[in-house]
C-alpha cells in the first residue's frame, strides 16, 4: 500500500458545481419556483421596459377625468384625466426600486448582526438580540409612520425605515442558522489556526447559512413591497403628480365604480409581484429542505 497511489475516485459524470448552484438548480425544478420567477420577470419587465411603450407622459392630461377606455387611452383616464396605462407603466419603478433597496439594507444589517451574535455567544449576543426584540415589538407600519411624520416624506427615509424594520427578522433567522454552524469542526479548525474572526464569519459561517438566507431574502422582499405600497397609498411615498402604484390606488379609489382600471391595474400588479416573490421563497425553502425531491439522486 505504500507505493500504489490510490487514484482519485472521481464521481463519474459529476460536474464541478458549487453547492449553492446545486440548490438553485434543485429549486428551479419545482413548478412553483418557475411560476414565481415568471411572475417577477413579467412585473419587472413591465416596470423597466414599460415606460418605453407608454403612449403618454405619466403626468400629461389625456382626456376628461374618469373617462372610459378609448383608442387613445386604452385603460381610460384617472381622477385628473391622465392616461391610466401610461401611469401604470411608469408607476412600478418606485415600488420595485425602493423595496429592493430596503431589502438589501435590511439583509446586510440583519445578516451582520445575526452572524456576530451567533459567533460571540456572550453578553454581546444578548444585547444585540434584545435590541432586535425592541424593534420587533413595534408594528413596522407604526414605526414607519412615526419616522415619516417627523422627518417628512423623503424616499431615503422610506428605504431606511422599511430596511430597519426587516433587520430584526433577518438577524433572528441568521443567528438561528449560524448557531448550528459555529460549533462545527471546520470553524474550530480555522480557530486553531488563528484565522481572524472576520474571516471566520465571512468564509466559514456565512456561506453555510445562505440557503435559509435566500428564503428569507425573497420573503422580506415580499413584505417590503407590501409595506412600501401601503405607505405610498397613505401618501408617504412619492408625492403627486408622480406616478406610483400605491398612490394611484389612493387617487382613483373614489372613482372605483365609474372607472375601475386606475385601481384594479396597480392592485393586480402588486398582488402578482408579491405572489411571485413568495413563490420563489417557497421553492427555495422546499428545495433546501429536500421536499419534493422525489427520486433525484443528486
Amino acid at each position, binding site marked *: 500500500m505504500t507505493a500504489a497511489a490510490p487514484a482519485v475516485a472521481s464521481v463519474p459524470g459529476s460536474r464541478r458545481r458549487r453547492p449553492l448552484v446545486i440548490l438553485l438548480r434543485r429549486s428551479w425544478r419545482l413548478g412553483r419556483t418557475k411560476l414565481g420567477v415568471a411572475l417577477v420577470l413579467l412585473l419587472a419587465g413591465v416596470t423597466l421596459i414599460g415606460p418605453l411603450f407608454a403612449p403618454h407622459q405619466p403626468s400629461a392630461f389625456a382626456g376628461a377625468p374618469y373617462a372610459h377606455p378609448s383608442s387613445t387611452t386604452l385603460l381610460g383616464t384617472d381622477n385628473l384625466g391622465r392616461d391610466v396605462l401610461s401611469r401604470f407603466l411608469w408607476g412600478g419603478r418606485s415600488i420595485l426600486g425602493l423595496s429592493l433597496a430596503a431589502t438589501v439594507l435590511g439583509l446586510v444589517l440583519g445578516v451582520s448582526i445575526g452572524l456576530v451574535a451567533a459567533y460571540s455567544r456572550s453578553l454581546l449576543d444578548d444585547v444585540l438580540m434584545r435590541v432586535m426584540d425592541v424593534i420587533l415589538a413595534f408594528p413596522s407600519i407604526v414605526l414607519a409612520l412615526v419616522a415619516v411624520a417627523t422627518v417628512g416624506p423623503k424616499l431615503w427615509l422610506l428605504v431606511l425605515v422599511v430596511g430597519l424594520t426587516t433587520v430584526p427578522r433577518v438577524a433572528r433567522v441568521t443567528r438561528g442558522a449560524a448557531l448550528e454552524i459555529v460549533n462545527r469542526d471546520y470553524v474550530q479548525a480555522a480557530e486553531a489556526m488563528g484565522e481572524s474572526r472576520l474571516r471566520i464569519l465571512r468564509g466559514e459561517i456565512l456561506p453555510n447559512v445562505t440557503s435559509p438566507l435566500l428564503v428569507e431574502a425573497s420573503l422580506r422582499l415580499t413584505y417590503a413591497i407590501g409595506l412600501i405600497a401601503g405607505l405610498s397609498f397613505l401618501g408617504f411615498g412619492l408625492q403627486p403628480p408622480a406616478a406610483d402604484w400605491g398612490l394611484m390606488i389612493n387617487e382613483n379609489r373614489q372613482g372605483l365604480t365609474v372607472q375601475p382600471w386606475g385601481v384594479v391595474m396597480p392592485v393586480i400588479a402588486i398582488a402578482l409581484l408579491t405572489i411571485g416573490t413568495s413563490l420563489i421563497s417557497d421553492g427555495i425553502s422546499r428545495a433546501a429542505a429536500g421536499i419534493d*425531491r*422525489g427520486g433525484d439522486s443528486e
Partner: protein
Amino acid sequence: MSAPVLVVESLRVEVEGTGVDIVDEISFTIGVGEVLGLVGESGSGKSTVGLALLGHTRRGARIAGGAVRVEGRDILSLRPAELRSLRGGTVSYVPQDPASALNPALRIRTQLEETLAAHGHGANKEERLSQMLDEVLLPDDDLFLRRYPHQLSGGQQQRIGLAMAFACRPRVIVLDEPTTGLDVTTQAHVLATVRELCSAHGVAALYVSHDLAVVAALANRVAVMYAGRIVEIGPERVLFHESAHPYARRLVEAIPEMSGRHALMGIAGTAPRPGSRPEGCFFAPRCSFAAEECTHAFPPVERVADGHEVRCFRRAEVLAAGARGRPPAPDRAQPDHANVLVDVRGVNASHGERQVLFDINLAVEPRECVALVGESGSGKTTLARCIAGLHRDFTGEIALRGRPLAAGARARDRETRRELQYVFQSPYSSLNPRKTIGQIIGQPVRLFFDLDHGAAHDRAVATLERVRLGASVLNRYPHELSGGERQRVAIARALAAEPTVLVCDEVTSALDVSVQAAIIDLIAELQREMQLGLLFVTHNLALIRTIANKVAVMSSGKIVEYGDVDAVLDAPQEAYTKALLADTPSMESAVAAAGA
C-alpha cells in the same frame, strides 16, 4: 436443517424514477435460531437489504422485484394494513442509533406498552413488561420504567430497543448495526444478549454491520456485500479462513489485529456508487485477480461447498492463492529521547462545573507516537483539545519544547499554532462544504507562510501529493470526494502548516475498514518522513500496535496505565486495561473460537 424461516429471492431495490439499482440479485435464507451476518462497507446496500425485509425502503427508493418470504408468506405482496401488523410482530427491527429511535418525550413504560398494545398483547401487561426487561437484563422496577430515554445510558437504550424487538416473539429480526455507537464493554454485553435471545426464541436474525470482528463473534453464517450485490455467502469460519472472493479476503485482511505487529493492508480505490458501476464484475477494477473475462459480465453464483456460494470467475485461483501472510509493519521511528516535544504536566480540565481530566501527565518526543486510548467519556478527546488550544478550561501546564502554552489557540503565537496541528474525527464535518479543496488547503498556507500566489498554489499541490491526492482535487468541493479522500484532505490541511506535532482525534472511526488501513498507513509514513511527534487518540486498541510507540490508557479522566505499546497490550497491569482488552472483539479470538 429444517425449512428456513426467511427466504429472500432475487430482491431488487432501485432509485425511484431513474430505475438505477441500489441492490440487485439478493438471495439468501436464514434458518431457525440462526444469525446471518450481512457485512459490507458504507454504500454497499446492506441497510437497504435489511429494511427491505420489512417491506420498507428509504425515501426515493422502491422495491422493484424479487420476493421476501417469511414462513412461506411473501411480504412484498401484502397490503399496507397487513404489512403494518407484520412489522414489529412477525418481523422486527433494531435500529442503529437507539437515542434517536426512542421518543424522548415518553417514559420507558409508555413506549414498551405501545409495542405490546400495537400487536394485541395487552393482557397481563405487568407480567409481560417485567418479562421483556428481564430478557434484556434491565431492572423491571417502577422507578426504572418511569424514566425517560435520556436518563438511560447508550447500552440501556439499545437494550430497550432489543426488548421491544423481541417483545412480540418475532420470527425474523433485523439488527442494523445496533452496537456501532456503543463502547466495547457495553457492546460485548449487548452482543451476548442478542445471541442468547435469538437462540432461546428460535428467531432468524439478520445482523447488518460493517464491523467484521463483531460479526465474526456473533454470526453463524456471513454474507459479504459489495456495490449492491452479495458476492460471497458461507459459514462464518469459511468466510474468514478460506474465502473464495478477493474482496472478502481483502476485507478480512484490512482488519487490524491485536496480536503481533502487522502492516495494515487497505484496498486501493473506492467502491462504485449506484448508477456508475462498471460493466462486468463490480470489483474487477480494484481486484488483483481480475482477468479479461471479469470485465464482460457479472459472475454468476457458484457453489464452492455446501452452504458456501461465491460470485467470482477466478474463485479457484483465489482459493489456491491461500491466505496472504501479513507483512510485518515497518519499524517504528525511534523517538528522540533527548528533547521532549510536548510535555503535559498536572493538567486538570473541566466542562463547566464538571471536572473531566484529573492530574494528567504525558510527554510526546520527536518521532514518537503516543496513543491515547479509552472509552467514550474517558476524557481523551478533551485532553487532545486542551493541547491543540481548542479547550481553554484547564489548569496545569502544557509545554511545547519547554515553552508553556497559553490556553486557547488565539492566545498563542503564530509559530506555536503552526507547529501544533489537529486532525478531527469526522472528515464529514471538519471540511467546510462551501469551500473548494484548494481553498481549504490554502488557508494554513496563507496564515503561516508569507508566499505569493504562485508559490502558495505550488505548496498546496505539493501537500496534496503528499497525502496521495493530486492537483485534480483542487477545484472540487468536499461533497464530491469519498470519506477516505476527505480525511486525506483534512490531513493535508494539517500538514500544509509543516507542523512538528500532529494530534489525531479518532481519525479513522468514521471510515470504512479498508480505507482505515490506508489512512493509518499514510499517517505512519508521514510521521517517519516528517519526523512528527504524534498524539493518536482512538478507542480502537487493535490499531495502536501498528502505529504507536507508547500508549496511555484513560478511564474517567485519569491515565490508568502508561507505557510501551507492546508491554501494555501483552502484559497489562491494571484491571481496567485487562477488561478493555478482553471485551474488544477481535478477528483472532473469534476465528480461534470458531475453529476450535
